[in-house]
């Protein structure tokens, strides 16, 4: 076989492996009827889309729940991470490396066993099945992105600009709000996007802590899939995919190389 034929076969095979599962999902989302032995859907239609997006339907409620939880998680994370990130970037801290690593802990352990116990503790505190409970779980999970990226964003701010503001008589607080914070804003935005997506896609923590009242989009998709409603599951999955794809396209605008190189440093 000639070189270009080999290349074509390998790339074709790779395209099949990478895009095949996604194609199958799109087909299910567009299918109205699809059963054995038909290799492609028997009929296409929007019946299931109408079912998913009908006003006050489960999916719309779940979508709103998911977005609310994700936005609240972002707000909580940033409220904790902006002061922490600034301190890590600019102030003298004992045990600085250890503190940075502490935020990595929730991602460094297999999380199922931990969530089981969070659920048990929350049960006594009556936080199980509440929005607050789920937001708290998502916050801890997202904190590593928030703190690390925010710290990198502050570290990338030109120190001379802050010193100039102080020399002109600005207070430390005023310098922070008028110089450091605006200059670090793109990086902080990037960390907010990470946290938002992480919360939107989170499954395990919500599975244990959110039951039975909080049904986010991933949980709705899971339930539909297990019940065999492949069209509903596929449509919900596509909705979950949209933010991820948009993110992939815009992230480079927010996360510049000068910030990237300082992450975790």
């Amino acid at each position, binding site marked *: 076989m000639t070189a270009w034929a080999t290349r074509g076969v390998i790339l074709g095979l790779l395209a099949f492996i990478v895009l095949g599962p996604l*194609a*199958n*999902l799109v087909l299910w989302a567009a299918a109205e009827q699809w059963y054995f032995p038909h290799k492609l859907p028997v009929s296409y239609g929007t019946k299931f889309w109408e079912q998913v997006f009908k006003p006050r339907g489960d999916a719309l409620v779940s979508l709103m729940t998911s977005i609310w939880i994700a936005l609240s998680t972002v707000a909580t994370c940033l409220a904790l991470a902006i002061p922490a990130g600034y*301190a890590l970037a600019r102030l003298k801290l004992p045990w600085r490396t250890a503190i940075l690593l502490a935020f990595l802990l929730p991602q460094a*352990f297999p999380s199922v066993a931990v969530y089981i*116990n969070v659920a048990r503790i929350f049960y006594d505190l009556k936080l199980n099945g509440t929005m607050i409970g789920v937001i708290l779980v998502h916050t801890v999970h997202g904190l590593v992105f928030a703190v690390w990226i925010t710290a990198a964003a502050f570290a990338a701010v030109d120190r001379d600009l802050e010193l100039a503001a102080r020399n002109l008589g600005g207070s430390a607080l005023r310098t922070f709000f008028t110089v450091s914070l605006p200059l670090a804003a793109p990086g902080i935005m990037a960390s907010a996007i990470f946290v938002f997506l992480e919360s939107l896609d989170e499954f395990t923590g919500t599975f244990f802590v959110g039951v039975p009242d909080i049904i986010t989009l991933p949980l709705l998709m899971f339930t539909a899939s297990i019940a065999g409603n492949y069209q509903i599951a596929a449509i919900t999955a596509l909705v979950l*995919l949209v933010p991820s794809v948009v993110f992939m396209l815009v992230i480079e605008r927010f996360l510049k190389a000068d910030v990237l190189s300082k992450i975790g440093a």
Partner: protein
Amino acid sequence: MQDRGRLGMALVAPALAAVLVLFVYPLGYSLVTAFEAKGGGFTLGNFAKAFEFYSVDIGFTLVIIGLSTLLIALASIAIGGYLVLGENPRAVALLRWLYRWPLFIPFVVAAQCMRSFLAKNGLMNNTFVALGLLEVDQTTGFLDWRGIVITFVWKQTPFVALLVAGAMASLDRSTIEAARNLGASRQRILFEILVPQVMPTLVVGLILSFVTMMSVLSVPLMISGESPTMMTVDMAFRINNYGDYGTANALGFISYLLTASCAWVYLRRAVRQ
């Protein structure tokens, strides 16, 4: 200076407290519960029960994750290597565009994709039948432990490949050119020059994805909920069906140990260098 240190600690404290209360405390709780008898007091009974019921799944968890990690490593090296050494610019550009797709796809969505794709009558088998590679009655579904491996490799390879390709691209080109001029084949350049130099990046990527795979519940639940499956499914089952925290936490403890031993191997390597 002391004041600034104190201010720094005050600014970091709320975030640290969140991690302590919402992560470290439950983690400690799970470690203690793993060794606690129903009425209180120390016991190893939870572990006896965990091994009695789930030793097969513990083994399968190791096989699934070990095999996935190996395949991810090979695929990442192949992708990274071709991106750096490939001679056909169009093929390189196509590969660069193609391999990243699963990167930002959530695990639940990946699981749903695979649940339909790998089924007995899914798009994969349908394509094979349509191409004449298989007869209709020869098809088998892959929705068992193999499906979990396929989903993990599909989802995690882009992440590791991205790191590896980045590390390979930033290496000094002159050694590669020198080897090429001396007539070394591309395979030799890849395995004797590129791979040894990007080993630290590759290992970090693999460890991160190892922990991720140990943590994911949705993929094994959706691809293969029946035994043999992964420990994460068993933990959820013990809790949801029996409220049996002892056994679930014993399984959790075992999963911490597996992850820790993997991290330890890495740290020892890092220290030796």
